[in-house]
C-alpha cells in the first residue's frame, strides 16, 4: 500500500468509521455504495484531503471514479499533487 493510500486509510478508519464495527477498509472496497461513507463522511473526507495534501477538490472530482474506493482516492490525490 502506497504512502498516500495508507495515510488516507488511517483517516477513514480513525475519523469516519468510528462507531461502526469496521476497524479497517480494503483498498478496493466500495466506499459509498456500501454505505460506509455517507454525505457527512464525504464532506469531512474532502476537507481532510484538501488540508492534508494541499490540493483542491473541484467540481466534477467527487464521483465514483475518484472516490469510489480507497485505491482510487489515493490515485486521485497522487495525480492531483503531481499536476500542481
Amino acid at each position, binding site marked *: 500500500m502506497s504512502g498516500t493510500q495508507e495515510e488516507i486509510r488511517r483517516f477513514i478508519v480513525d475519523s469516519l468509521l468510528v462507531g461502526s464495527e469496521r476497524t479497517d477498509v480494503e483498498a478496493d472496497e466500495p466506499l*459509498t*455504495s456500501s*454505505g460506509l461513507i*455517507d*454525505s457527512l463522511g464525504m*464532506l469531512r473526507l474532502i476537507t481532510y484531503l484538501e488540508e492534508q495534501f494541499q490540493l483542491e477538490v473541484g*467540481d*466534477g472530482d*467527487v464521483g*465514483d471514479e475518484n472516490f469510489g474506493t480507497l485505491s482510487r482516492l489515493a490515485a486521485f490525490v497522487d495525480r492531483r499533487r503531481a499536476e500542481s
Partner: protein
Amino acid sequence: MGYLLHHLLRDSAARYAAKEAVRMGGLAMTFAELDRRTNQLARTLRRLGVQRGDRVGIFVPKSFASVLSVFAVMKAGGVYVPLDPSAPAARLTYILRDCGIKLLLSSPRSAGRLKEVLDGDSQLQAVVFADEATESALESPAVPIIPWSAVAQESDAEIAATGAIDSDLAYILYTSGSTGVPKGVMIAHRTIATFVDWSCDHFNVTSDDRVTSYAPLHFDLSTFDLFVTVKAGGTIVLVGEHLSALPDQLAALLQDEKVTITYLVPSILSLMVRYGRLSDRDLSALRLILFAGEVFPIKYLRQLMGVIPHPQYHNLYGPTETNVCTSYRVLLEDVGADRTQPVPIGEACANSEVFALDERGERVTEPGVEGELWARGSCVAQGYWGDPEKTAKGFVQNPLNTAFREIAYRTGDIVTLAPDRRNWLFVGRRDHMIKSRGYRIELGEIESALYRHEQVKEAAVVAIPDDILGSRLRAFVVLTDHNGVTPKQLMTFCSQHLPKYMIPEAVELCAVLPKTSSGKIDRPALLRQTVAPS
C-alpha cells in the same frame, strides 16, 4: 371515495395502469404491477394477523420494496413505521418495542443488519421479505421469515376495506428526543391527504412529472415523493442512499432520468452545487426544486439558482409534527448579492393555519416582533406514541380558540413577521434542538447517551454552525477517572445507542466544564471555545 392514502394508488392504477409508477437502476414497475403486488403483500400481512391499527415496521434500503411496503401496510389497515437502516440495533429494538411492532417488512439485502435486530430482544413475531433480491440467506430460526415467493402466491385482487378512516394513523415517524429516547410522531391519513391535495394543486403536479425519491422513508419529505407522485400518476425515480455521498452521480441521475421535480435537503443541494458539475448537465426537464429540513445558506442557494436558473424554487417548512405547514417561492431578488439572511419560511399551505405568539401569549401582528410559531388544522399530528406527558407539552388547546376544543401544535421555532406582513421568517430556537443535514437532533439525546457510560461524570454537546452541513457536533466530557476512557472509545460507545448522524465528530476530555451563575453548564462558553483561535 378516496380518503385514505392507499386510495391514491387504487385510483391511479385504474387511470394509469400501464404507466411507469416507479423506476430504479433502469428497471420500472407500472401502476398496475404496483397495485397488484401491494395487494399480495397486504393479503400476506392480513393472513399473518395484522389488524387495523397494528404497527408494522419497514426495514429496507431505498428500493421498489420501499414503495411496496408503504402501500401494503396501509392496504392491510396497518400503520407503517419506517426504521432507519443505519441506526444501531439497540435503537431499532427500542422503537420496535416502544410501539409494539410484531411484524417487520424487510429485504434479503438488509440481511446483515436484520440479523442483529433479530438477535436482540425485539419481540418480533415474523419478517416478510418485500422483494426477491438475491443476497446471502438469513438464518434466524427464532423468527419466521416469509420470502417473496410465498407472498407471490396470494391473490393480487383488491383487498377488502379494513374499516380505517382518515382519522386513523397512516404512519409513525421516530425523531430525536431530548430526554434520551426517540419519540414516535403519530400521523393520520388526513394529515398527509391535506398535504398531498395542497402539493398537487400548488405545484400543478401531473402524470408527466418524474419525481425523485431521495429522502429515506423515516424522513417526512418522503411523503411528497411517494404520495403526491402517485396521486398525480407521475413516475417516482428512486435514489439509492449512496448517491447522497456522490454529488456527481446524483446530478447525472437528475439529467439522465429527466427528473422534473426534486425535493432535497439544502446540504445535498450545496454538495451538488460545489461538486456536481451542474453547468455541464442538461437539466432542462427540471421544473421544480423544493427544499426543506434546515436553513439553506444564502451563498449556496444563490450559486445554485445561478447555475440552474430555469426551475421554480420553493422553501418548504414544517416539523415532523405538522409535515409541511408553510412554503415560500424563492425569487432571484431573495438571493441577491446584498442578501445575507435566509429566505422566509413563507405562508401557511392551503387548509392549514399558522400563527405566532409572543412572550405574553399574544398574537404577533407586527413585522419584527418575535414569537413562537404554532400550527393548527389537519396538518397537526396526533401526538407521540405512548407518551402522554410529552404529547401534552407540544399538543395543546389552541389558546386563540375559546369556542371549542381544538389541539394546536407549538413548534418551538421562533419566528418573526416579514415586512410584507404575510410571510414568516425563521429566527431560531430556544432549546437545544438543532438541524444537521436536515436531520433533527436533540443535543440532550446525545448527552443522555454519553451519560450512560459509567465513566462519564459530566457531558455537554454543542453544535458548531457549518455552511454546508448546518451543524457539526462536538462533545465535551468530564470523566470520573482521568485516564479511564479515550475519546474514540466514547464515540464508539455513542454509536451503540445513536444513529450515525448524531455521533459527535470529536470528543474533548476536560477537567471541568464552564458553568453559569445558576450552576448549569454554560454551553455558549463551550461554543466560544470551539471557534476561538488556539
